[in-house]
């Protein structure tokens, strides 16, 4: 059970006189409950295409995507997406943004505010319930986005570079927050990032993708997030020899892929 992607390819049709683009070639991937799968790779390697496939915004040219045994044929509340930015509703305050998905389901206001309030507290936004989202900082807006994605109790949380726009310090804090929430809620997570350190620290499994055509070039199983959740300080985990060795190895792979593709 869980998410099962089998032999999926995506070809964007020819346009403006350019030949068709093979965005993804023969992707196989499964995401089980409790998995934290991180996709890493240079721009244009198809990470976002893969996420859009799972979210149901895009359908594959060939191959199959199954969630709990049923084919994915469009977006649905069992897969919530946290976007890089621009995805909150500025006309709603924080609590109504977080409760947005519940409102669409037609829950009464008291009930959805109760649920939303729990997740707002979980993300440390308790005193900002009634704030306007456009007045919050980028880091806090992103936390609102994560809280919103969690309220509908999805099977799978899809995160498309959710921390890309944050400053270094906020970013590390947000990483730890997301890991704790993942641990507490037990959701499966599919997480896209550009940062090798972030990828290694957060994932239980890492897929390194290569461009032209987009494909999964390497897979790693990662122990670091569990070390952190078992009590090791984040910086200590990230500074351990094992972490650094793997970081350099992944970087080498990415650079080599880039050169091979160029």
């Amino acid at each position, binding site marked *: 059970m869980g998410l099962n992607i089998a032999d999926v390819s995506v070809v964007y049709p020819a346009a403006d006189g350019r030949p068709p683009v093979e965005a993804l070639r023969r992707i196989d991937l499964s995401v089980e409950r409790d998995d934290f799968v991180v996709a890493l790779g240079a721009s244009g390697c198809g990470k976002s295409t893969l996420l859009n496939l799972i979210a149901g915004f895009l359908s594959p040219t060939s191959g199959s995507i199954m969630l709990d045994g049923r084919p994915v044929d469009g977006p649905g509340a069992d897969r919530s997406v946290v976007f890089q*930015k621009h*995805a909150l*509703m500025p*006309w709603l305050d924080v609590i109504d943004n977080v409760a947005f998905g519940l409102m*669409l389901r037609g829950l009464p206001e008291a009930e959805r505010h109760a649920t939303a309030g729990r997740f707002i507290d979980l993300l440390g936004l308790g005193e900002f319930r009634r704030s306007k*989202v456009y007045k919050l900082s980028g880091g806090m807006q992103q936390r609102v986005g994560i809280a919103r994605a969690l309220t509908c109790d999805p099977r799978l949380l899809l995160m498309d570079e959710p921390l890309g726009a944050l400053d270094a310090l906020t970013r590390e804090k947000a990483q730890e927050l997301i890991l704790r929430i993942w641990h507490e809620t037990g959701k499966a997570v599919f997480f896209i990032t550009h940062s090798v350190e972030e990828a290694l620290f957060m994932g239980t499994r890492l897929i390194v993708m290569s461009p032209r055509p987009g494909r999964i070039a390497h897979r790693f199983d990662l122990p670091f997030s569990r070390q952190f959740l078992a009590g090791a300080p984040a910086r200590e985990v990230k500074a351990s020899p094992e972490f650094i060795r793997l970081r350099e190895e992944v970087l080498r792979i990415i650079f080599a892929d880039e050169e091979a593709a160029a």
Partner: protein
Amino acid sequence: MTDQTQAPTRARPSSSGWLTRLTRAAPTRPGETYGVPGSGDTTWLSLASIALLLFLWWIVTATGWVKPLFVPSPGAILQKFADIWQNGFTNTSFLEHIAISTARVFGAFVLACALGIPLGLAMGMSPLVRGIFDPPIEFYRPIPPLAYLPLMIIWFGIGETAKVLLIFLSVFAPVALGARAGVKSAAIEQIHAAYSFGATRWQVMRHVILPSALPEILTAMRIGVGFGWTTLVAAEMVAATKGLGYMVLSASQFLQTSTVIVGIIVIAAIAYAFDLLMRAVERRVVPWKGRM
């Protein structure tokens, strides 16, 4: 000695100030952002500009450079205003002229919004609706209302229908096109977020696209009501016995220049007051405009 030490600090703003302003932005004070185009408060400058215009007006009439037939003095306008206010114009009280014109413009405006906004949104959402309604709207939009006024009269007579319809048409196109453009304001991430919560197409429309489009719709309404006032005089050209447009037109035929100017100023004042109201509505309804 003192002259020499003070010279550079004094020379900069006076001799090169205007020229440097053309090539680079002014340095900013704390709390401002460097390089924002057109930033700065203009209230005093605008008041000064109005005062200067009034002064020039007064000067050219008081010195007798221009005959009162062409430009009556500000005092004569005030007198005329008081006169019309008390005695009315062509046996109709001034307030009735105002009321009837306002009713025509806002009646047409409300009707144009009630039909134009939904249609514009539908045009933005559906290629079917857009395909059907784009040609007729784009066809009549650039035509001056005066050009199709004869048709309106032939088809709808000389009663109230033709007048309101003429104003309606001039408001309808900008409102519908504004609403249609507003549909594009929602970020695709916002739309995707709603769909990934299981929203239906209707819910996306109601809870994402409509609120995102509000700033553009309100702007289109402001532009639209402006077109409405512009068309008012044309609408009251034929078979009207009441209204500000009628007042201006018939006064012009008797060379009552001061009445014409009073009418113009009253139209401008009502239109401006409504624009201020719409801006206040904007600040209340879409305080997030341009901020996310």
